[in-house]
């Protein structure tokens, strides 16, 4: 039993960190967040060269064939860098859904170009009810065409094709298909843009089998929790650095226990989120029966912790933390958007309750 990272896992984490430090510094993040899609073609092709765009997918689809723990580590580093654009939407979300639900031919057609870095995509799940349970979808395809509206679709304007979760299956829609209308929703997080996507008798290709969808959503949820860990770590690092240098009453503010304890709690919350996210990744890799609970625990904890860590970090910065020029609010915005994405803590607590409290009755009855 070993909870530490293997040498190759450490190598992946370190090289991802150097990559994002060099290719996606905060100046780049701020530049991209002011653009319409936050997508940068040059950065994307460099990520593809690194193998990031196919990280967990089989080599037969031009993927890198790595495991879920590696995905978690990569997402943690992406979160630390506040990587803007459609990486999560394309590789993690659309990639996982295609891998789980598409036929081999469809994987060759849609997943392989994602792995090669040629195409971008996203998955449309939410509708007006904003329910993250994929089974709550109302939209349904009639004679191979979709009509209706999906909301909060991340990175839709950067996508070449959009995967749509419908009542009667999972569908792929070309971003240029007739009857499709993609309009921005003004979200708090400028680095991951949200869109409303309307369909009017839009031709859609049904993916092979929707049964794998919950597992794909679990992969995306765990990866998002890991991304949040990276954001928390960066917020902590920036804050500790500031507490060491900012002086008041003639001393660095980090000498005061009221400030130290905020930082200590940020550390505790970050490390605990990390333990839960790594474990979630491992249970996915192992197809362990406890994976759904582990993933909900990771997202439950990270959802509250990333908000709290952000609160503490800004509080320690005082007035400086409330300025536009300070980077913390960019992480804070992402943390808030990620908190609700794929279900907030309340959503996941209810899921844990179903899997543990309600399961206790079922096992008692069957005994």
């Amino acid at each position, binding site marked *: 039993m*070993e909870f530490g990272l293997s040498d190759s896992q450490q190598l992946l984490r370190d090289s991802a960190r150097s990559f994002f430090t060099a290719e996606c510094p905060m100046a780049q993040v701020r530049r991209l967040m002011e653009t319409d899609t936050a997508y940068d073609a040059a950065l994307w092709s460099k990520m593809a060269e690194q193998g990031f765009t196919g990280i967990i997918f089989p080599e037969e689809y031009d993927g890198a064939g790595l495991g879920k723990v590696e995905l978690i580590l990569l997402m943690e580093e992406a979160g630390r860098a506040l990587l803007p654009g459609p990486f999560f939407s394309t590789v993690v979300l659309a990639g996982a859904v295609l891998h789980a639900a598409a036929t081999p031919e469809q994987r060759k057609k849609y997943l392989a170009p994602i792995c090669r870095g040629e195409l971008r995509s996203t998955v449309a799940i939410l509708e007006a009810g904003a329910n993250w349970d994929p089974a709550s979808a109302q939209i349904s395809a009639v004679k191979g065409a979709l009509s209706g509206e999906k909301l909060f679709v991340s990175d839709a304007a950067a996508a070449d094709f959009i995967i749509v979760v419908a009542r009667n299956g999972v569908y792929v829609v070309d971003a240029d298909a007739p009857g499709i209308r993609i309009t921005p929703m003004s979200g708090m997080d400028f680095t991951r843009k949200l869109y409303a996507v309307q369909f009017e008798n839009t031709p859609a290709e049904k993916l092979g089998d929707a049964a794998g969808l919950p597992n794909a959503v679990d992969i995306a949820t765990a990866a998002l929790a890991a991304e949040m860990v990276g954001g928390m770590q960066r917020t902590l690092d920036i804050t500790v650095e500031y507490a060491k240098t900012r002086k008041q009453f003639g001393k660095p503010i980090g000498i005061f*226990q009221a400030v*130290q304890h905020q930082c200590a709690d940020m550390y505790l919350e970050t490390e605990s989120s990390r333990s*839960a996210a*790594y474990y979630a990744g491992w249970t996915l890799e192992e197809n362990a029966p406890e994976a759904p609970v582990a993933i*909900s625990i990771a997202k*439950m904890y990270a959802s509250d912790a990333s908000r709290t860590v952000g609160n503490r970090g800004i509080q320690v910065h005082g007035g400086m933390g409330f300025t536009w020029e300070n980077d913390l609010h960019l992480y804070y915005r992402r943390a808030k958007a990620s908190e609700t994405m794929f279900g907030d803590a309340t959503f996941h*607590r209810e899921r*844990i309750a179903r899997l543990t409290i309600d399961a206790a009755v079922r096992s008692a009855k069957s005994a």
Partner: protein
Amino acid sequence: MDLNLTTEELQFRDELRAWLAANIPKDWNEWREKPIEVSFPYLRAWQRKLQEGRWAAVSWPKEYGVRGASLMLQAIFWEEMARAEAPPMANSLGLGLIGPTIIAYGSEAQKKRYIPKILSAEEIWCQGFSEPNAGSDLASLQMEARLEGDTYIVNGQKVWMSYGWVGDWCELVVRTDPAVPKHKGLTVLLVDMKAPGVDVRPLRQMTGESEFNEIFFRDVRVPAANVLGKVNDGWNVAISTLMHERGAYGARLHLLFKRNIDRLIELSHTLQRNGKPAAQDQVIRQKLAQCYGEIEIMRLNQLRAFSRITSTGVPGPEGSILKIFWSELNQRVQQIAQELLGSYGQLLGTDSRAVDHGIWSYAYLRSRGNTIEAGTSEIQRNIIGHFVLGLPRSY
């Protein structure tokens, strides 16, 4: 990262499981709820039996007749002990904290003299750290040890000493040089609790029990050969003990916590709230799920820490988050238990209407001490601030 058990770990677990199944005393249930003063000889005999099977401290070096196993095997040991609902071992401080400190700092003669009897529970150990005026500011302690020839003469008072009433030996932190800065004049002595001048009195705590003692030392004579580590280096020796307490002790608590949440979930199906089972109440569901998740994270934090200790060799200051996490979590869990039980939560074991023989009212009160014992949450946060995050010292 691979959380599957290795072949060696599986073998160890299966061997231990079989051994526990064959050896856990059949009458343990009759003893379980007796006061510890009554059950202590029973627990002592149980530890002796474990040691005969070479289970008492599996991770200690092989030269002491134990297994020299990894910390992971030690963690698996605690998990299996809890799973089997085995009795606890009598010499818990000796095994958990003081033995590892003697192994790290003791002379060969000291190790030979003390370690085997810690393992066999022939000698029970207690810990003399806190004083009435030295709690969080441990380094300010005043207990005086004056060297006369080759003997220290010890005078002063210790408080909050666990196992003081049954201790044969004590890891005692004393001041050997009052002239130097406070951290630099401390020494750790290994003290025979039967020596003349040692006066042990019960310290009654808010639960009504006396788990702890206060101890008065009057002209107690301790041979200079009983210094653990170097003279005036007692701060480092004491910190080593405290790090073991913070870093590894929580591992034994996880399954207790897990049993608590499982029991609360079970109770939520029978207890009513607003005319239906509490398990169907949205607020209760949310709170139970939160506790369930955090108890799992406690386990994962502990496992990650074990992996880190395995690669560095010693528990580090980051162990402080484990202590904060379990102690504050237990208080939250006990509060949820109270909410679930409603009016019944307050009933003591002496009331026949009490749920689960009153363990929940006791556990609620006892959990209040968790964020104070073994270093307050505030001290743990100071440690993280300074030693982990590198912030300047506030004192």
